[in-house]
C-alpha cells in the first residue's frame, strides 16, 4: 500500500513532468464544477427559478462568510475565496466516488493554494499599510519579536496546507485500512463521514482561515 498521489504517466516522457492521479482528478473536478456553474447560471432572470436559487445561495453564503471579517470588501475577495471553497469542497467530495483520489490528498495542491493565500495576504498587508509600513509591523510591539513574527508568518502556509492535506490523507488511509479489515460493512458510513463531513468541514476551515489571514494582515 502506497498512500498519496500515484504517478500515472510522464508528460512527453520527461521525468520532471509527472502526471499524477490527483492531478487528473483535479482536472475532472474543474470540469465538473464548470459544467455545474454553467448549468446553474443559464437563463437567469430577476425572478429566480430553482437552479438559479442554488447558484445565488452558494454565492451569497460565501459572501456572507467574507463580509463580516473583511467589511465592504466581500465582493472584491469573493472570486478568490469562493474558488477556494468550491475547488477544495468538490475535491474532497469527489473522493466519495470509489477509485478517485482526492486532489487535496496531494500536498502539491494544498501547499500551492496555501502559498497563493500567503502571497495574497502579503499583498493585502502592503496595500493597506504600504510596503515599509507592513514590514515594520513585524517588529511590533518590540524589535525582539521580529524573528518570531517572521517565523509565525512563514509557518502560516505550512500549517494551512498540512491541516487540509493531513485530514484528507488521514481519512483516506483510515478508509483504506477499514476496507481491508471489514470490506462490506463499516466502510460505507465511514467513507461518507470522511468524504462528506470531513471534506466539507475542511474546505470550510481552509477558506475561513484564508479569510482570517487576510483580515489579520489588514487590521
Amino acid at each position, binding site marked *: 500500500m502506497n498512500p498519496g498521489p500515484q504517478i500515472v504517466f510522464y508528460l512527453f516522457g520527461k521525468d520532471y513532468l509527472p502526471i499524477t492521479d490527483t492531478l487528473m482528478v483535479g482536472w475532472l473536478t474543474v470540469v465538473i464544477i464548470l459544467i455545474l456553474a454553467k448549468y446553474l447560471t443559464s437563463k437567469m432572470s430577476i425572478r429566480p427559478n430553482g437552479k438559479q436559487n442554488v447558484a*445565488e445561495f452558494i454565492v451569497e453564503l460565501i459572501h456572507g462568510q467574507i463580509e463580516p471579517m473583511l467589511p465592504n470588501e466581500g465582493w472584491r475577495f469573493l472570486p478568490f475565496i469562493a474558488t477556494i471553497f468550491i475547488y477544495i469542497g468538490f475535491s474532497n467530495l469527489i473522493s466519495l466516488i470509489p477509485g478517485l483520489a482526492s486532489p487535496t490528498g496531494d500536498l*502539491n495542491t494544498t501547499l500551492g493554494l496555501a502559498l497563493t493565500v500567503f502571497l495574497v495576504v502579503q499583498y493585502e498587508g502592503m496595500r493597506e499599510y504600504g510596503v515599509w509600513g507592513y514590514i515594520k509591523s513585524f517588529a511590533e510591539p518590540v524589535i525582539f519579536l521580529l524573528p518570531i513574527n517572521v517565523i509565525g508568518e512563514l509557518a502560516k502556509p505550512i500549517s494551512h496546507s498540512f491541516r487540509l492535506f493531513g485530514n484528507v490523507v488521514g481519512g483516506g488511509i483510515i478508509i483504506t485500512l477499514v476496507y481491508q479489515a471489514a470490506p462490506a460493512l463499516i466502510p460505507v458510513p465511514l467513507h461518507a463521514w470522511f468524504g462528506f463531513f470531513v471534506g466539507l468541514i475542511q474546505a470550510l476551515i481552509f477558506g475561513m482561515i484564508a479569510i482570517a489571514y487576510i483580515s489579520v494582515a489588514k487590521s
Partner: protein
Amino acid sequence: MVNINTTMIWQLINFFVLLFLLKKFLYSPVKNMLEQRAAQINGDLDAAEAEKEKVEELKAEYEQKLRNARNEAQKIVDNAETRANKKAKDIISEAETKAENIKEKKLAEIEQAKKEAVSELRDSIADYTILATNKLIQEQLDKEKHQVMINQFIDGLDKEKLGELQ
C-alpha cells in the same frame, strides 16, 4: 507520500483557470443579478411609496367629497321633509275646513227639512181641524146626534186617516 513536484504548478493553473472561469460564469452573473434585483426592488419600493402617498391624498380628497355629498344629501332630505310636513299640514287643515263646511251645510239642510216637516204637519192638522169643524157646523144637531157624529167622525178618521197619520 509527500513529494513536491510540478503537480503544484498544474494545480495552481487549475485553480486560476477555475477562478477566472467561475468569475465569468458564476460570480459575475450572480452578483449582477443580485444587484439588478436590489435596484429593481428599491425602485419598486420607491414607486410603491410614491403610489401610496398619492393614494392617501386621493383617499383624503374622496373622503372630503363624500362628506360634502353626505351633508348635501342630508340637507336635501331635511328640506324635503320640512316641505312634506308643511304640505301635509296644509292638506289636513284644508280637509278639516272642508269637512266642517260640509257638516255645517248638512246640519242647516237638516234644520231646514225639520222646519219644513213641522210646518207641513201643522198645515195638515189645521186642514183636518177645519174639515172637522166644517162638518160640525154643517150639521146642526142635538146632543145625541152630536155624539153620534163625533163618534162617526172618529171612526171614519180611524178607518181613513189613521194609517196615514201613523
